[in-house]
């Protein structure tokens, strides 16, 4: 059984993520209409939104503490929000501002918040090995923290993931691999890239626990994650949890999705884990007023974060030369070489 307050927390996280991304989308499109120029506007570069994935982030992270490690892939916002990443500084990072999590060096695919042990990588499946390393550290140090690697179903054909499963399994590490299966890897439908429909079966081949659950029911994700995270925390080894989610949008902003059948797009819109969880809340006796409160709290938090981020200064161009090392050895470029120093002799 799930306590109602936990359901409320999940609901708030999911609504926050949805509203956040709706606002990011507006900001992102500024300066990109009618001509979509990816380098224009207040948020340039790629932007991968996670509408339809929220229950995976919320249901899993509900069981995590600040000292548990999470690695996320290129589609990280909903997981970051559920893990408790500082929303203001995350937003400033996405806007490329000086007070962003990384001072504007990382951007939306590379969010790092060591306070809650959250990190991202834009290279498919490459967050898995570091999560195994975090699990290794926890085991060696005899703490009961766990590590969770999020990845897409397209990433489970990647060596880095399969090797990580094996290493985590053979060493009984406290790691949970969470596969967000949205049926698509950009334009490639799952059935064209793997013959195994249930990705959790990959677990069988490596001797770890596997489960698959449908995120339409956020409570089911919560339950499955409780089991997987609980095993890891109790020293019972790693798990692979595949969560069926839906991609409500294009792969990235600007994806015309010409490859995707209309029925599939429509189907993704029909199934909304947020609405379903709201119904669950009501069934558990939560009244309209409380739900409205949760929604408006999410709304205020999102607006506050975006307004704050947009007020932050841009980084100094010369900041680019800092942070290559924490302890810069001498002789390494820490500022642009002046052409005069190396210049001509006439």
């Amino acid at each position, binding site marked *: 059984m799930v306590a109602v307050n936990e359901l409320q927390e999940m609901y708030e996280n999911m609504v926050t993520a949805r509203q956040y991304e709706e606002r990011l989308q507006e900001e992102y499109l500024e300066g990109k209409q009618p001509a979509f120029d990816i380098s224009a506007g207040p948020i340039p*570069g790629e932007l991968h939104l996670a509408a339809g994935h929220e229950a995976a982030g919320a249901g899993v992270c509900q069981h995590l503490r600040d000292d548990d490690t999470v690695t996320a892939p290129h589609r990280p916002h909903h997981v970051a929000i559920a893990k408790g990443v500082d929303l203001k500084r995350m937003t400033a990072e996405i806007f490329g501002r000086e007070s962003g999590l990384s001072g504007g060096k990382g*951007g939306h*695919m590379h969010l790092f918040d060591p306070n809650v042990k959250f990190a991202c990588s834009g290279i498919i499946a490459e967050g898995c090995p570091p999560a195994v390393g975090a699990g290794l550290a926890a085991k060696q140090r005899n703490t009961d923290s766990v590590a969770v690697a999020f990845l897409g179903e*397209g990433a489970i054909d990647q060596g880095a993931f399969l090797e990580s499963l094996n290493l985590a399994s053979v060493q009984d590490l406290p790691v949970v691999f969470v596969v967000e299966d949205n049926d698509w890897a950009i334009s490639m439908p799952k059935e064209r890239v793997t013959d195994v429909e249930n990705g959790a079966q990959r677990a069988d081949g490596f001797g770890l626990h596997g489960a698959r659950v449908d995120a339409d029911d956020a409570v089911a994700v919560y339950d499955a994650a409780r089991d997987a995270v609980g095993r890891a925390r109790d020293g019972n080894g790693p798990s692979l949890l595949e969560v069926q989610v839906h991609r409500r949008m294009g792969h990235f902003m600007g994806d015309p999705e010409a*490859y995707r059948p209309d029925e599939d797009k429509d189907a993704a819109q029909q199934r909304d884990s947020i609405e379903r969880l709201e119904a669950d809340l009501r069934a558990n006796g939560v009244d309209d007023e409380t739900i409205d409160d949760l929604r408006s709290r999410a709304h205020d938090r999102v607006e506050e974060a975006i307004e704050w981020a947009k007020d932050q200064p841009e980084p100094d161009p010369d*900041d680019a030369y800092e942070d290559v090392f924490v302890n810069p050895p001498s002789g390494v*470029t820490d500022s642009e070489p002046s052409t005069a120093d190396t210049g*001509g*002799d*006439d």
Partner: protein
Amino acid sequence: MAQQEDNASDQQADRSLTMSRAMVEAIAHEMRANDEVFYMGEDVADYGGIFDSTQGLLEEFGRDRIMDVPISETAYLGAAVGAAQEGMRPIAELMFVDFFGVAMDQIYNQMAKNTYMSGGSVNVPMVLTAAVGGTYNDAAQHSQTLYGTFAHLPGMKVVVPSTAYDAKGLMHNAIRDDDPVVYMFHKRLMGIGWLPAPDGPKTGVPEDDYTIPFGSADVKREGADVTIVTLGLHVHRALEAAADLADDIDVEVVDLRTLVPLDTETILDSVAKTGHLVVVDEDYRSYGVTGEIIASVAEAALDDLEAVERVALPDVPIPYARPMEDEVIPGTDDITEAVRTARGDE
């Protein structure tokens, strides 16, 4: 018949193409001529390549020859190596060159070395295509060119086109070449709607096939005072700088077009004329293209050199935020300044 073809090509002189369309035209031509040519990569079929590298090819050639593959770069790039060793002519695409790390063994220990290790009894006639470059705020994992990395490791021919005309001729040559060729196309030059190209890469392109031999640099602008040696996107930035400087300094712009083999002769001829060498590269500064070009000239013609400048990416990962990315990626102003410095007028 021949007459008609002549007429046809006269008319086609009026036609200009974007770089992506020119590449695709060459690939389609080779695929029609040779059943053993096929293309594999992520999102190359229905999507037509994230950077339009395979637009329209699926319709003509079908899924067996325009092949979407799982996100398993080691497996499919390695499969291209194996198929090439069987005598086929695979073209395999790495969506962003930044992902090379996932599959580097297949690239540099297998593809690049098998010919040599077999004493020349095995050859690997494949093309590895990869999108390169920054300037649109995609941050450190999606913006590199890595020209120097591939050119450094022996056994691969390395091609970097800067115009549609060159892209087509070089692609024909790459597919027909009996050795492995790494064909690196700059995203900013492809002529994609959402990533506008500068003026310059779109050129007239003959409809008939033609090859541009490897190791033939192209003097894109003649000049008497300073030689700029560069490649890719920076050919166009150098031409812009040359135009800006035209009243004071007569700049020659040499487009390398291939890094391996390197056309030192054209560079030396130019430096013999101008005495002033500026090398411009979008790759990292240290241990890279700029150092290599300057060392080659110094070795062969030290006496010709009055001044040397290099303009490259400083030794930092590429930052996300606009002010910092603009700072590190060489701009037209940086080139202008380096040319002036080389001439001793600051």
